[in-house]
């Protein structure tokens, strides 16, 4: 069975949505779950860094 695969740009857009949610949970969620939320947030940040494939993907280039 074949599945359709999002292009990298679409994958990055989905990751950014997830990052906003993870940040909200990390900042406002249960203290006991804070480590999990931080892990989610940093994991998403990492995958965003991994999926940077062009100079245009770098947000703070000066």
């Amino acid at each position: 069975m074949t599945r359709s695969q999002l292009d990298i740009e679409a994958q990055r857009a989905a990751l950014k949505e997830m990052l906003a949610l993870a940040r909200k949970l990390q900042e406002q969620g249960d203290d006991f779950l804070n480590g999990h939320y931080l892990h989610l947030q940093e994991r998403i940040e990492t995958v965003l860094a991994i999926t940077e494939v062009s100079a245009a993907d770098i947000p703070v280039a000066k």
Partner: protein
Amino acid sequence: MYQSRLIDELSALSREQLKALQLSKLQRQISRLYESNVFYRERFDAAGVKPEQIRSLEDFSERVPTMGKPDCLADQNAHPPFGRRVGVPREDVMMINLTGGTSGQGQEAFGRTNADVAMQGHFHHLPWHLAGLRRGDAALNCVPAGGLTTGGWGPTEGFRVAGATAYAAGGVMSTDAKVDLMLRFGTFHFIYASTSYMHTLTEAFRRRGVNPKTAFPMLKSLFVAAEGYPVEWAQRTEDFWGAKLHEGYGSTQSAGFCGGTCEHGAIADGGRGNIHIFEWHNVVEVLDPTTGTPVAEGEEGEVVLTNLDIIGSPVVRFRTGDKVRYMGRGRCGCGRSWLAVEAGSIGRLDDMMKIRGNNMWPSAVDAVVFRHESVWEYAGRVFVTGSGKTGVELRIALKPDAGIPEGAERENFARKLKADLKSATNINMDVAFVDRSELPNYDYKSRRWKDERSDGFRSGAISE
């Protein structure tokens, strides 16, 4: 059908696109460090360089000074335990990695964030992916897991994000037990080991009379790191296992592998293959260690490393002491534009030796041996034993008036010496006493150590 648009896109980058990506990430990292990392801010200020002045990779190389282990140790001593180069709040440090400490100079400490730990996993997954590892594959990990090293945790995380079934057998079972484990579970697609341990495992299979080609016909890849090897050994190892040999290059400073061989493997067309550097994660410069200028294609130079995606304790233009042969860009049959260095020949500029996964400097052994006034001279030898293991032997000549007679007293002395050597280097060494006339005289710089492992790889039984 398996597909990675990400790897496809990165593999298809032109040289210009890759340079633009690398420069953007470098500018982001330098700006971040200037704003949040006092150690680097002070270094940049001392060099008179501001982030906005880094407009090209050439600007970076010309304006930013190199750093080395002494800079890290001085920072740590002044600001223990991590030094100010950690650059993140103390509570954001989720893992501590230390270098081996066997240089005799001290251990560099690296404070890694959660994101860094995830990135360490990626830095293992990436070269393993290029070497053929896929989700659902079974992998034997012969490198000891856990502990305080990057090599202890990165692979664990790397196998997890690869979706592979990892058997973390390194350091917890004997070689024969690993053979038994492989035969018991029966399915293995991937083996990860140091070069010398791959040789040990090969010898163990040969000694046991097990043909891995029939026992593990699904085996795809043998992935080695940390030590060089002759082409002949690589060819014979591939023939024995019926699998392709791959190699990764990395260090604690690179937080995992910063390069790995492509689908063509570590040897191709009867010669050495290419290790491709992941340039969008690191700036790797191959420089003449004397002049600091880039070496020409085909020449050897020192790796100077800059992390682009590491947050805690990153390095910027770090002189690694690693000696590589620069193989240009885009010359490999795979067509990738990534910088390449020669597989199988990475060594050290100093006299450090990699022994059973430990970095050993002769100066560290000198410090232990010559602590004893009774020692006149010694010679060290690293070799491959008949059973394929790495052996280390010290032949020691005592002074005529040492006052340590043969028998119980000398045995006690040897026992104490071996314990001190193990403590200083983390390596078990054999000690034998010889007459001074059996050891060389050193007219200029002492060359007390001989590394005979390449001979062992050549003459090992698998070569027959």
